[in-house]
């Protein structure tokens, strides 16, 4: 008999989540606006003393090896880029969720944050190969948040997860997402989407979270972004930076070719660059 997790209990868990700070939310909204400028981000950071302190701490961490201490937000942002500020804001607002062990996925503490950070960097690298204009930092932000649903879903999923891999291996379901739907009645993308709505995140980011395993189902206006994160997620899993038992148990949607020009060599460069930046970002955000 198919077991179903308690959707109402998940709804209540989402309702109990603390909201993102107004500044962090505003930052995500600004990043999602294709017409925004760096000054818009600087203005938000300057009005948030905690964020300012964290940004300055990161830019002055030994990882970046700067000779002179950076004391202004303008310089820090021009050096770090918007993406590191987003990482800091997300870590500050959702760090507990992102760092907790994913028992349902047999993922150790910190696995979700590492996967999301790697996916963010890889999504941005993928976006460099876009056939048209692309907002690279929005791809990064989408990658950073795409699997947020696992943080809540995992607690419920652990009750029924043990049959997921055997279902996939026996061909009863197509992939891990289908196993979640079959065994639990809903999946981590849907839970993440509800969390993003609860947090009132920009629509583009909500769509990334909901459709990142099936990007063709996303509305046309956001499809390139969703495909970038779809591929960033896959690159992250290929690099061994997954969230546990579901690693690589998903399908590649080759519809990405419409939006990205990727050769085997391009993919190798993406893996190489993502790995290098991930090591640096992880260390600087940990210090």
């Amino acid at each position, binding site marked *: 008999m198919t077991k179903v997790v308690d959707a109402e209990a998940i709804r209540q868990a989402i309702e109990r989540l603390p909201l993102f700070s107004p500044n962090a939310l505003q930052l995500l909204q600004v990043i999602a606006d294709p017409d925004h400028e760096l000054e818009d981000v600087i203005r938000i950071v300057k009005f948030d003393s905690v964020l300012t302190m964290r940004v300055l701490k990161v830019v002055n961490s030994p990882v970046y090896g700067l000779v002179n201490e950076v004391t202004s937000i303008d310089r820090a942002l021009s050096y770090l880029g918007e993406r590191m500020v987003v990482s800091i804001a997300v870590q500050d607002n959702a760090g507990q969720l992102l760092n907790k062990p994913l028992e349902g*996925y*047999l*993922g150790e503490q910190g696995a979700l944050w590492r996967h999301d950070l790697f996916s963010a960097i890889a999504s941005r690298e993928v976006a460099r190969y876009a056939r048209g204009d692309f907002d690279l930092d929005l791809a990064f932000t989408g990658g950073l948040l795409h699997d947020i649903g696992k943080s809540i879903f995992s607690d419920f999923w652990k009750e029924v997860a043990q049959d*997921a*891999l055997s279902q996939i291996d026996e061909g009863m379901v197509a*992939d891990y997402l289908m196993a979640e739907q079959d065994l639990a009645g809903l999946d981590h993308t849907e839970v993440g989407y509800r969390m993003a709505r609860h947090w009132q995140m920009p629509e583009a980011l909500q769509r990334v979270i909901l459709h990142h395993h099936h990007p063709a189902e996303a509305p046309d206006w956001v499809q390139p972004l969703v495909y970038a994160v779809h591929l960033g997620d*896959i690159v992250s*899993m*290929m*690099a*061994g*930076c*997954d969230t*546990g*038992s579901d*690693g*690589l*148990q*998903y*399908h*590649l949607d*080759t519809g990405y070719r419409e939006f990205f020009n*990727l*050769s*085997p*060599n*391009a*993919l*190798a*460069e993406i*893996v*190489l660059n993502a*790995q*290098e930046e991930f090591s640096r970002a992880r260390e600087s955000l940990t210090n």
Partner: protein
Amino acid sequence: MSEIILGIGDYGASKTPGGRVKTFALGSCVAAILRDPRNGAVGMVHVALPDSSINEAKARQRPGYFADLGLPLLIQEMARLGSPDNGRGLVVKLVGGASIMDHNETFNIGKRNVLALKKHLWAYGLGPLAEDVGGNYSRTVSVFVDSGKVVVNCPGRGEWEV
């Protein structure tokens, strides 16, 4: 226990009694594992990409990242422990090289890594005695000095010997 933990692009060898060499979460990366049955030395390299020509700077900085440079370096490391520097007589096992479901040629880095390692092994007159490669799951692998055993595990799939 004396333990050498390898990250991506790292290589290492040991013949310390009770020791092991281990690497985590290979994904599409491949671990080439060597053992010298004459002196009990074991070694491993964690290769991420098949060919170093893609990025010369990175190749200089982290040669073990690439199959074409990592394998010779591991054989040199084994030689430092007393094994032949031409690799003769070494026992080889390959682990990793997984892929996403429905991958296309572009995304099949795992298979290209395995093929590249085999090609460079052939240049030494070597070939894998055993391999656990491909599939859609990431592997963590250890090789033990005392027994020479190669043990693989994967979240949700348990542990097995190659």
